[in-house]
């Protein structure tokens, strides 16, 4: 089963990388760029019995290992059964 986790800094947390990237994009001509946030995307391939189980596991993985709850927020989805 193909699943995907996306992790970003929480909205209240400053994202220096996104900030620098937005400035750089504007500088090279993409003047319509208003803001950029950079995060991680983690594609996890797993042998889950069903989507429910996959989601339960993903939730736990995010809490335990993939994301840092102090500064990050996460989302996950099953892409393909």
């Amino acid at each position, binding site marked *: 089963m193909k699943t995907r986790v996306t992790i970003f800094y929480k909205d209240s947390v400053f994202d220096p990388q996104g900030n620098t*990237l937005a400035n*750089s994009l504007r*500088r090279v001509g993409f003047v319509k760029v208003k803001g950029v946030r950079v995060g991680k995307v983690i594609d996890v391939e797993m042998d889950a019995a069903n989507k429910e189980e996959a989601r339960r596991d993903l939730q736990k993985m995010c809490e335990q290992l993939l994301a840092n709850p102090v500064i990050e927020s996460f989302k996950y989805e099953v892409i393909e059964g």
Partner: protein
Amino acid sequence: MKAAVITFPGSNCDDDLVYALSKVGGFEIAKLWHKDETDLSSFDLVGLPGGFSYGDYLRCGAIAALSPIMQKVKEFANKGGYVIGMCNGFQMLCELGLLPGALAKNESLSFVCRDVSMKVTSVKTPWSTDLKEGETISLPIAHGDGRYIISEDEYQQMLNQGQIVLQYIAENGKESPNGSVHAIAGVCNREKNVFGLMPHPERATDMRSKDGLKIWTSVVKAIGEKSA
């Protein structure tokens, strides 16, 4: 001889390079700012220093490759001018397309700084005539993204053309400190006037090791021959 050292926002080995070149002697050194669009044709050597241009955000060297001065660097290189990039400068040269391949995160996922041994693979470049083929030299490395990636075909081709200049020597059971394909530490373009390497020859001209000096004396010779 005139050398240009280009400073990008976040460069931090620019002064180290100036120091090394002044140690080598014979250079009139100009520090240029990445926003300058100076014509470089009066220079004999252009150096892209190490550091963390733009904080290494997005990809090392990627944002710097879009700096205004980089078009001039490209023109200079395409006309056969000598260009060297160390560490972050190497990353910029790959991002610019002046060198083949790309540099990815170290396999260990950690930054690593230490003196490492490497073998001289090709002496048929303007950068390595003062070295001996097969010789082992020691240079410091300090990087988190030094894993050089290139396809096997390209590697073979580059090897045959003498473009593979330096390769790490296995240590502590690891083929290289960063996981580079074929333990590659430094490469040239096909014409050999552009040289990029992850180690820091500019940090090895006096205190720790003097092996870096030979790279600089090699190119000084090449410049002399070219103008003769």
